[in-house]
């Protein structure tokens, strides 16, 4: 089993396998996202209090969940890279960061757009919104730190430390609505019985679509990272000639 794992981590193998795997992520992702769109915009019934405006839920909540999911992936990869000195793990962290940052931006933007008609304000400095904003800054800081250190190994490791320090933000984001009375509403997706399945399923479809999407885009970026980091010319030459 370990030989398989080591083989996977070897750049030429990884590059090829990643290339084959990507369509298995991207097509299901597309289907699920389209399903989520259809379910969220057309099929799901109107909300009792918020009417059609509630539909923003179907892009806001999956984006927010992904912003944290990607960060935890990034932090785990960073930790693995730091402890076991695996280049591929650092590459995963590096490739995840921009995707995660964009999901965070989407969560903040859609939340703001949703907030205006429903709660009367574009923004409020409560615990959840503030900690999600801090998450965006953590992503940006990670990306900025990596790009400003010239030595690639040191850049990887410094950014990894930063990613791990920022992990403490994740439980704060998640539990902030429990610990503090805040304008942001409490958990609806994860509390059983808080939302009917006929209203919930488009969000779940969208969420899983987003996860598969993340996988696909991550692997594309990883292939780019692998090429960028590769020093051994032979397999690279063969690969580029294809």
């Amino acid at each position, binding site marked *: 089993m370990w030989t398989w794992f080591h083989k996977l981590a070897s750049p030429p193998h990884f590059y090829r396998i990643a290339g084959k795997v990507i369509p298995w992520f991207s097509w299901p992702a597309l289907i699920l996202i389209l399903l989520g769109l259809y379910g969220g915009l057309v099929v799901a019934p109107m909300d009792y209090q918020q009417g059609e405006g509630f539909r923003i839920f179907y892009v806001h909540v999956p984006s927010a969940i992904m912003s944290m999911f990607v960060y935890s992936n990034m932090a785990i990869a960073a930790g693995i890279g730091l402890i076991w000195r695996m280049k591929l793990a650092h590459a995963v962290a590096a490739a995840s960061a921009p995707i995660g940052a964009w999901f965070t931006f989407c969560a903040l*933007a859609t939340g703001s757009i949703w907030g205006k008609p429903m709660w009367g304000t574009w923004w409020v400095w409560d615990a959840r919104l503030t900690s999600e904003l801090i998450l965006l800054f953590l992503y940006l800081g990670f990306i900025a730190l990596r790009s400003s250190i010239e030595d690639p190994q040191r850049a990887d490791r410094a950014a990894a430390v930063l990613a791990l320090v920022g992990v403490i933000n994740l439980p704060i984001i998640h539990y902030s609505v429990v610990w503090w009375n805040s304008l942001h509403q409490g958990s609806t997706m994860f509390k059983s019985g808080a939302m009917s399945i006929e209203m919930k399923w488009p969000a779940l479809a969208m969420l899983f679509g987003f996860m598969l999407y993340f996988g696909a885009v991550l692997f594309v970026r990883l292939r780019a990272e692998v090429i960028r980091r590769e020093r051994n010319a032979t397999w690279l030459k063969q690969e580029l000639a294809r």
Partner: protein
Amino acid sequence: MNVSEFLDMGGYAAFVWPAFGLVMSVLVYNIWSARSAHAEARRAAARRLQMEETHS
């Protein structure tokens, strides 16, 4: 429900459509950005290999 009612989103059209549009655009952009990063990495690597060959 007809098309114009659907587009109106119960009066919330100015909020719902930009929100969905924004997220979908970000998703499309990230696909494009990842693929172009990959293509650029390949081009740069090819250039690098060529230079190494001519200089060796």
